[in-house]
Structures are given as C-alpha cells and as structure tokens.
C-alpha cells in the first residue's frame, strides 16, 4: 500500500517569501506529525494532529509557522516570511492512532532559504 508522501521534495526560496509544504498520510491513519531535521541533527517535533485538530502546537518555533489538516487526511505546513535558519528537512509522519502506535515517515521536503 501507499506510504506517507510529501511534496515538494525540494524547495528553494528567497528570504522573506512564504512556503507551503504538503503531507499525504497513510489512508486510515488518524494521527499526523510534523518534525524538522536540521543538517546533522536529530528530529525536532513541531506539531501533532489528531483528526483535524491540533492538540499540541508546542514545537512550532515561532508564529511564522502554522499548519492545518483537512478531511482527516492532507496536512499543510506553512512558513511565512522565511528566514535562513528555517532551512532544514521537514518530515511528516502518520500513525494509526495517536497513542502508542508506530509512526511512519514520509521522504521529507528539503527547504533551502537563500
């Protein structure tokens, strides 16, 4: 079956521009997560969705970051007024439920802010 997909795979943007990153989770998975991975570093939690609601947004670095999920499926992570420190790989994961289930990751979107 299809895994988690993300688009675009690569995004190069200029400082100050807005970007949207998309995640399509595995069908039937109610929980969805966004993580950020800076070069040579571990994964950093950003936000969690259970269904279409986001009980935990505590990992979002600033108010320039926002995310939404619709139809208990696709999620979009938006970064406004991008800065060079936003350059990283943004990973999306989904799991069957939000409790103890394994999280399955997409291939990530590599964002480069010039």
């Amino acid at each position, binding site marked *: 079956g299809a895994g*988690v997909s993300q688009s675009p795979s690569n995004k190069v943007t200029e400082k100050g521009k807005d970007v949207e990153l998309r995640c399509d989770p595995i069908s039937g998975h109610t*929980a969805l*997560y966004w*993580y950020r991975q800076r070069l040579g*570093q*571990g*994964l*950093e*939690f950003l936000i*969690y969705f*259970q269904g279409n609601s986001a*009980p*935990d947004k505590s990992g979002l670095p600033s108010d320039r970051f926002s995310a939404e999920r619709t139809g208990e499926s696709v999620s979009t992570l938006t970064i406004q007024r991008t800065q060079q420190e936003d350059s990283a790989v943004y*990973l999306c*994961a989904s*799991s069957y439920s*939000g*409790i*103890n*289930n*394994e*999280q*399955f*990751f*997409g*291939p*990530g979107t590599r964002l480069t802010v010039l």
Partner: protein
Amino acid sequence: EDQVTQSPEALRLQEGESSSLNCSYTVSGLRGLFWYRQDPGKGPEFLFTLYSAGEEKEKERLKATLTKKESFLHITAPKPEDSATYLCAVLSNAGGTSYGKLTFGQGTILTVHP
C-alpha cells in the same frame, strides 16, 4: 523534559564485525522506545518498538534490547547495506499527554566497509 542520548556518534565496522549501538534515555514514564533507520535523503524507516525492560526484538541481523535506562541495537555480522543512520526515540507520559510525540536522539552513523 525527556532526553535521549545516542552513542557513539559514528561507528565504522568491517563487514562481519559485530557491534552495538547505545541509546540512553531519561523520561517521565516510558510508554515505548523506537528504533528507526535513516538512509541519506530519505525519511526514517521504522525498525522496532520496545515497551518494557527485558524485552527483545530481532529482525535479520539486528536485535534490539531494553533496560530501565537504555536500549541497545546489536548488529551481528553486518553487511555494507546496513550502513545508515540509526535513530532512537522515546514516547513518554511527559506533561500528562496521551499521544505519540516522539523525542529523538541525535543518531549513530554506521558505516560498514566490505
């Protein structure tokens, strides 16, 4: 705050030379410890979940074990295709949450030479 420390940062092995990777953790009530494999340019690939001290799981040349303070990923007779970054992550009861926010270690970069 949950903390995960992996060692060594990098490990070079000859093909067939068995070794172990370490994951030390400090959490408020462990609900699960996860091992992932990450190849360059790809998202993490799920390997194992361990839930309680004394538990062991195996997959091909990999065996994961868990104690109350750490987990080991044993690699027996590794092959070059085992070369990857191995990530450890914990799921805890921190903050009274009941969802699957993972806290990741920095990873161990494993290189197996033929």
